[in-house]
């Protein structure tokens, strides 16, 4: 058990100002950030001993599969369930994501990711998917690439680190483009290639990428995002030229 000093950014309501609150806890060295937050809520006192409202945060699977607990820890975007206390320099500064609106304390509203997927129509268009179970469609895909791309759990780390995600830009982020690429590789998706590529050429699509390559460095699932972006960009160019010259 060691003494851990945490500095947590808090905010009571979306419109109220944010402030930092310091906590000191006793924790095992192998504990994660999530465990530290759980210890705090059992005895919610700040460093000066005053009883405060327990910190509100979001977490679910604790195995880097659900993408709920993305936080900024000591200035870096991380999945809080994967960061050990012993690996952090103290005081450990914990902040919510900055590109998304804060709801309370460490919880942010990531509805943008869903909207992006809906805008890009990142899905396979197919009829009677469940109603007719007899329909067969062999998926002649490069299963290894598809598997990596399907690993994306929409945590928002790539959007947080991307310089193109700001109020002046309509770029929808690398995550949704990776999702597009995932469906493009499936056999049914290949038949809908023009729909996918037209969506990618619209506002907020591939043209927004400035090739800063931050996303690939911060992705907790290690998706080959820059490779995908480069490939999509090449394909859309091809598609656009073909459209003009036939």
């Amino acid at each position, binding site marked *: 058990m060691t003494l851990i000093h945490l500095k947590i950014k808090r905010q009571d309501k979306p419109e109220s100002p944010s402030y930092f609150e310091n906590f000191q806890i006793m924790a095992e060295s192998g504990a994660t950030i999530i465990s530290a937050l759980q210890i705090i809520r059992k005895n919610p006192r700040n460093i000066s001993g005053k009883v405060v409202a327990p910190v509100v945060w979001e977490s679910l699977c604790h195995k880097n*599969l659900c993408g709920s607990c993305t936080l900024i820890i000591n200035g870096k975007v991380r999945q809080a369930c994967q960061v050990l206390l012993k690996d952090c320099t103290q005081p450990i500064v914990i902040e919510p994501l900055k590109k998304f609106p804060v709801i309370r304390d460490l919880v942010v509203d990531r509805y943008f990711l869903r909207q992006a997927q809906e805008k890009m129509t990142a899905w396979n268009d197919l009829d009677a998917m469940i109603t007719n179970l007899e329909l067969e469609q062999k998926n002649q895909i490069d299963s290894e690439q598809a*598997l990596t791309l399907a690993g994306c759990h929409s945590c928002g780390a790539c959007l947080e680190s991307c310089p193109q995600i700001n109020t002046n830009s309509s770029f929808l982020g690398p995550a949704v483009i990776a999702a597009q690429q995932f469906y493009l590789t499936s056999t049914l998706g290949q038949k809908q290639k023009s729909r996918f590529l037209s969506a990618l050429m619209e506002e907020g699509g591939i043209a927004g990428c400035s090739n800063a390559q931050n996303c690939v460095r911060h992705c907790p699932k290690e998706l080959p995002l820059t490779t995908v972006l480069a490939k999509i960009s090449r394909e859309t160019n091809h598609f656009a030229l073909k459209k003009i010259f036939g």
Partner: protein
Amino acid sequence: MTEKKHIVIWGNGIAALTAALRFAEEGITVKIVCETSLLRSIDVLIPHGINAATNYWNDGDSITNHFEESVECAGHLISQSLLYKMCEQAPKIINFLERAGVPFDRTVEKELFFQKTADSDFKRCVPAGPHTAQKILKVLQSQLLRFESKKLITCFEGYEFLRHIENENTHSLVVQNIKNQEITAIPTQTVIFADPGWQHHCLAALFEQGVFLANPEFSGGLWTGETFETNKKGIYAIGDCSFRLKGAKPLQGNYLLGLLFSALECSCNIIQNKKTFVAENNKIEVYLNREQENWQALLDLTGPENSYRLFDEWEQIMIQKVDCPRREDRLLEASQEIKKLKDRFLRVGLNDHKTWMNTESVFVRRLPRLFSLAEARIAGALYRQESRGTHQRKDYPERDDNRFLKTTKVKFNPAGPEIFYENCDDSLYPLKNTKYQKIEVA
């Protein structure tokens, strides 16, 4: 408020999404109500792939083999006709997942790569990488967004389940928005529960309102018929909420299959019976006001007990005294300690009195439900004087098929749970005494 043809589904996991998509394809409007955001589901943790007896490798596998292995694994305590149907449907279920784009593992010839699991004699399980459930969820979620953009599915995300109201064949879910803490009612005639919630607290809430539980000593779920309808008309439970097919879950690869199959079976039944889905909002104001008052009272609690520490103690009791191997004296001790926790809960206090995204108040409301669920589990384990599957008693180490080849059915009573037994369907694969191996537990 009258809305035509709609159905309410509670949950955002694999079973909930599959059922929602089935209704949406039929042109029925679906309302999905769930605790977390649509893109976050705890189902990502489900291990292994999906079983389907296609006999691809010619190793003698067949639907009957799959079925018999599942029955053995369930300790014969499972409805066999339903289970057989599940094994039959399995290859078709894989068909639909594949069409939707789930990247299953492939052989060099680009065929599905059926693999052998540790507890089966046949190569029957097809995974999609290390986290099959996550891949399936991702694909189902994208399909859901497709129907959402067609306005066939509406999502209500971030809601806490408070209670259900039954009134002249109409059900209303009373829910609270976790963000702005508003309490509202969602009226419907048919509601499907597909998410048991954190530590099964939603099941506990329903249990306290008169829905029967079944087999709580083996984790179990709500009691449902073969159509997945509970003892209350119009309330359905699928996936992890229903006790049906849960017995077959320990056979690797059957868990996901059970979720998907129960969703399909239940939704097909509802569609075929051409239920009217029209619901009218009737006198629910009284209940809404009562819930609102309850919540206000909850916010004002200032006792000395911390709810999170009480939960830790509850967890320790469950791990040390109720988890296997079980013993009568330990179970009785546990039931006494749960009673003490219930008394201490009366002195619980909140540190957070704010009215915006107050997760502590949500937690405090869930806690007493866990206690009543624990009591049902302890009672079920006490009465079942035998060892079978995941229920192991040190004082009764043998399986007793004469007395206990039966489903435990539990009815809520504030004084303590009432237990009944119901005969089990073993029409297709009658009992044999072979194969059942006893494992020594230290």
